């Protein structure tokens, strides 16, 4: 059974090239891709059950002992992240098949599996250079997916996205070199063990290395002022890809949680509260700018993109204090905002397919206006954090967890006011697209695109949001255990380095 935990990596790594052999045979590709992703959901759920016992599983690549070999580590946080990824991926895949999105360019399914391979790897690796490599894997796949279907604006946005991320990767290597120069190791558990024994004269280098890594993950997580890649990318990416990218920003959040609890933890005297102090103001400003963008979007896709920026801000507000309570709130909000953003982008694609554009201008009512409006309403409620869906509970957790924080007034003010701004922004956008449309006369009535399978995809993701609202109790129990495990890194270090440490 020891090989079981790397199955998500092996399956995706085998399936991605295997799917290439069936190019042009869409039915086979679709079947294989769907079956693979469904199997991944089951395996990830089983791994989550295994990790829920508190056991930290370690897989040594080629059986080389850490810190010399590369290890894959599965703890509660990793298991939660891979399960979330697999669930979102399944919903999005069903939608792209139902709407023929996968047929509008070459190699959608192989790239999709490569994307999942990179995501799973980044979430499970215990080696920071390997984290860089998996970042590159998921980025290369995302470059392909981003321009899937082509088009002038999409290609331009794709170039921006690639160049921004190339610069980010370069910075990542710079920070890795700095880390290696200080720590002399790249294994995260080994670094954590060595961090406590570093001499005080290394403080400047350690702080520099930490700040550089933070910048790299902030690029991934679209934290202001490093968020510039996100609005154009999400607006112009094919909608299912934008929905899948909802998890990409969370990889940045995951990496920050992992590295800044394990290596540069809050108890490390050399860095102290430096990273918390850097992160909190940036997170507050991100939330504000994101939600102002929601008001001024100009098209539904851009409104949703800025909502994604804003929700990353709220997520980082909850991550920034690096305390156990706040991390529980952050994890709940992370799961929620991934699913909400995914559902929202898929609904916007339904609008585009029926209306011809998601620009906020007056056009005749679309076909199936009521159905799409209902779905948009649900996704918007989830995104803005209105009751009764999980966004409300998530924001409540965040506010509650930060009650005793020195900046509590700012946090409460920003989160509450920006929520109102987001509600106004979404209400305005929705009323232009769905409501005022009835004042315009339609010339022709276009046929309704196929809906059945596509609806199953969106419905599945929305059902998950409802599920995490109803089952908020059991879920938070798991998340509380996850946070407890994160802030007791000795278990992780012991599991990776073995008894002899």
């Amino acid at each position: 059974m020891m090989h079981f935990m790397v199955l998500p990596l092996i399956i995706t790594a085998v399936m991605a090239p295997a799917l290439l052999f069936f190019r042009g045979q869409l039915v086979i590709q679709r079947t294989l891709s769907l079956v693979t992703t469904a199997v991944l959901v089951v395996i990830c759920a089983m791994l989550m059950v295994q990790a829920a016992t508190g056991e930290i599983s370690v897989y040594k690549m080629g059986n080389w002992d850490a810190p010399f070999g590369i290890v894959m580590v599965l703890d509660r946080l990793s298991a939660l992240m891979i399960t979330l990824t697999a669930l979102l991926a399944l919903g999005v895949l069903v939608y792209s098949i139902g709407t023929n999105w996968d047929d509008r360019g070459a190699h959608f399914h192989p790239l999709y599996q490569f994307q999942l391979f990179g995501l799973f790897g980044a979430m499970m690796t215990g080696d920071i250079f390997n984290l860089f490599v998996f970042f590159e894997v998921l980025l290369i796949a995302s470059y392909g997916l981003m321009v899937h279907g082509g088009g002038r604006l999409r290609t331009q946005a794709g170039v921006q996205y690639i160049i921004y991320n190339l610069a980010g990767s370069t910075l990542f290597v710079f920070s890795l070199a700095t880390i290696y120069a200080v720590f002399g190791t790249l294994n995260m558990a080994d670094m954590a063990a060595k961090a406590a024994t570093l001499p005080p004269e290394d403080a400047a280098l350690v702080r520099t290395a930490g700040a550089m890594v933070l910048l790299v993950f902030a690029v991934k997580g679209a934290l202001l002022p490093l968020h510039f890649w996100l609005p154009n990318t999400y607006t112009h990416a094919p909608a299912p890809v934008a929905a899948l990218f909802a998890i990409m920003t969370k990889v940045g959040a995951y990496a920050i949680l992992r590295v800044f609890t394990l290596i540069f933890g809050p108890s490390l005297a050399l860095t102290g509260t430096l990273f918390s102090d850097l992160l909190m103001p940036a997170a507050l400003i991100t939330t504000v700018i994101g939600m102002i963008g929601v008001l001024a979007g100009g098209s539904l896709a851009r409104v949703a993109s800025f909502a994604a920026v804003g929700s990353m801000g709220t997520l980082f507000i909850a991550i920034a204090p690096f305390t156990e309570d706040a991390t529980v709130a952050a994890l709940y909000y992370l799961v929620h905002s991934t699913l909400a953003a995914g559902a929202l982008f898929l609904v916007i694609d339904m609008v585009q397919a029926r209306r011809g554009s998601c620009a906020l201008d007056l056009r005749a009512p679309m076909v199936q206006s009521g159905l799409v409006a209902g779905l948009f309403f649900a996704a918007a409620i989830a995104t803005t954090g209105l009751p009764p869906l999980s966004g409300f509970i998530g924001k409540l957790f965040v506010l509650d967890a930060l009650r005793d924080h020195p900046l509590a007034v700012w946090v409460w003010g920003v989160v509450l006011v920006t929520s109102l701004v987001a509600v106004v922004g979404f209400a305005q956008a929705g009323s232009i697209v769905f409501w005022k449309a009835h004042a315009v006369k339609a010339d022709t009535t276009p046929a309704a695109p196929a809906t059945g399978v596509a609806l199953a995809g969106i419905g599945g993701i929305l059902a998950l949001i409802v599920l995490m609202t109803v089952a908020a109790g059991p879920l938070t129990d798991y998340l509380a255990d996850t946070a407890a495990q994160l802030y007791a890194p000795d278990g992780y270090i012991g599991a990776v380095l073995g008894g002899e440490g």
Partner: protein
Amino acid sequence: MELLVAIIIGSLTAVGTYLMLRLRTFPVIVGLSLLAYAVNFFLFASGRLMLNSPPLLYVEGPHTDGLPQALTLTAIVIAFGMTAVAVIMALTAYLNGGSDKLDMQNEAPEVTPEERGQ
């Protein structure tokens, strides 16, 4: 030697950063390549600079650290591949859009008839 390496890395980074801010695809890609050179050199130097010492343990020491050399190789391969992708994408964008400028206006996404399911 440290001073020389530091000056080389510093000037490569400075020039690369400057070119990256030019907002046209060609200078930006050249800038990225220069940054990639700088970072490879920096990564190489992270294992400390030593002259005439082998990275192999079975040869008589003093030894240099072999790991950064392996990491540098990985980084070179990735940077090389990524630059190729960036060049192709920039070329496609130029041929599609008729401009090599990087900034974009605030436009609603295009929807092709195919995407409308027609």
